[in-house]
């Protein structure tokens, strides 16, 4: 096994082009588990921790550009206003030691349906930046996840950044696990209200072979919600929203939970996230009035 240690993005892209089956490693919180347990023996490890660009974040064209190698701890510290749903999800990742190392780029590279970053990226309509020696391209998160652990990333591409649209309304994240820390989600849910476009975004984690959206639930809520005043929704509408979220899931029975439990939990999280969001929305509407 080769260990490649590029110090610039150009070098890294050349390395990935020369070794398309080479495995990029950043925080190592997924990759090293596979190596330690003999589950994977890549021909090459491509260490991305020495590339300054990947560890940076900043404002760009009405978005926050988040380098793929920024650890969750930094996202929690610095992006709770610019990316509330992602920051909330980041807080629920594993433990402090893992949050110090784990990155959104790693979540996207592994593309486990349980990855905490995916539901917020879907709900907020984030965009993923991919790069190769052929150039850079951008893929909406909503088109990124193709099938189980398969994404739109091509073999010679690296994930370089995520573009997070400026929030225009409340964003929430909820996760069910057997305890608060150190758990892989049994299932998770993210909700984003966009007051400007009057649209709703959702993201479901551990609810199917890929991270999913509940598009029927999004359309339903966008039509029912009082975008002017943020009036609380009738109980029946809240319940209907939860049902539509659960109906969009394609869960399995496994050691972490049954499909039926996951569907139930999704409907409960959807209702809760909605009620938190309506409360936040009303606060904002009152302040602006």
């Amino acid at each position, binding site marked *: *096994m*080769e*260990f490649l*240690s590029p110090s610039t993005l150009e070098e890294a892209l050349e390395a990935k082009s020369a070794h398309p089956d080479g495995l990029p*490693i950043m*925080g*190592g*919180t997924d*990759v*090293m*588990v596979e*190596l*330690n*347990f003999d589950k994977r*023996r890549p021909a090459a*490890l491509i*260490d991305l*921790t020495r590339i300054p660009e990947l560890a940076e974040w900043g404002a760009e064209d009405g978005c926050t550009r988040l380098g793929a190698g920024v650890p969750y*701890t930094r996202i929690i510290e610095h992006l709770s206003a610019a990316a509330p749903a992602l920051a909330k999800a980041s807080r629920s990742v*594993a*433990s*402090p*030691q*893992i949050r*110090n*190392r784990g990155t959104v780029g790693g979540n996207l590279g592994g593309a486990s349906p349980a990855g905490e970053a995916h539901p917020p990226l879907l709900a907020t309509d984030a965009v993923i930046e991919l790069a190769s020696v052929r150039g850079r391209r951008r893929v909406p998160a909503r088109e990124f996840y193709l099938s189980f652990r398969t994404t739109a990333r091509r073999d010679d591409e690296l994930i370089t950044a995520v573009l997070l649209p400026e929030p225009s309304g409340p964003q929430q994240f909820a996760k069910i696990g057997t305890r*608060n*820390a*150190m758990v892989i989600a049994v299932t998770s849910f993210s909700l984003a209200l966009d007051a400007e476009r009057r649209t709703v975004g959702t993201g479901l984690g551990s609810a199917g072979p890929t991270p999913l959206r509940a598009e029927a639930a999004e359309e339903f809520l966008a039509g029912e919600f009082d975008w002017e005043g943020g009036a609380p929704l009738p109980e029946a509408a809240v319940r209907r929203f939860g049902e539509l979220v659960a109906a969009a899931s394609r869960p399995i029975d496994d050691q972490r939970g049954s499909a039926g439990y996951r569907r139930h939990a999704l409907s409960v999280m959807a209702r809760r996230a909605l009620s938190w969001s309506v409360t936040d929305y009303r606060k904002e509407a009152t302040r602006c009035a």
Partner: protein
Amino acid sequence: MRVSFNVNGEDVTADNVWPGESLLYVLRERLGLPGSKNACEQGECGSCTVYFDGVTACSCMIAAGQAEGRRVRTVEGLAQGSGKGPERELGTVQDAFVEAGAVQCGFCTPGLLVQTDDLLERTVGAGLPAPDDAEIREALAGNLCRCTGYEKIIDAVHLAAERHAGTGGGA
């Protein structure tokens, strides 16, 4: 491959390192620093926690080559003094764990010590109030102990925080 980095203030080099092995393996098996413990090898237990460029991390999840040129501080580096033998004195956190009875089988202890040291540096060490129970539990959420039930560990952290604040500096 050859990997050179700094451990506890000392520049070290390890040879014949397999590129896929962990920093934990290099520390324990190649550099004679067995303080960091190998238990789960998947970041669940925290017993291999070290400072890596000043930030705590599970050393089982850092590839050896990623440590090239970096600064590592292990549990061995928490004791005061530069020697390797009995001339070294335990640091504030280590003393507090012994006194509070927070050490039973001892396997999780090195990771808890490093993670506690970090918590105290970020709180009382930075002029902030001593951490409360909730903050301690959050900071130590990635360190599993199967003996103590954690109560004595929490006591030890409170004790270390008091002393750290009292002396104006830690180990």
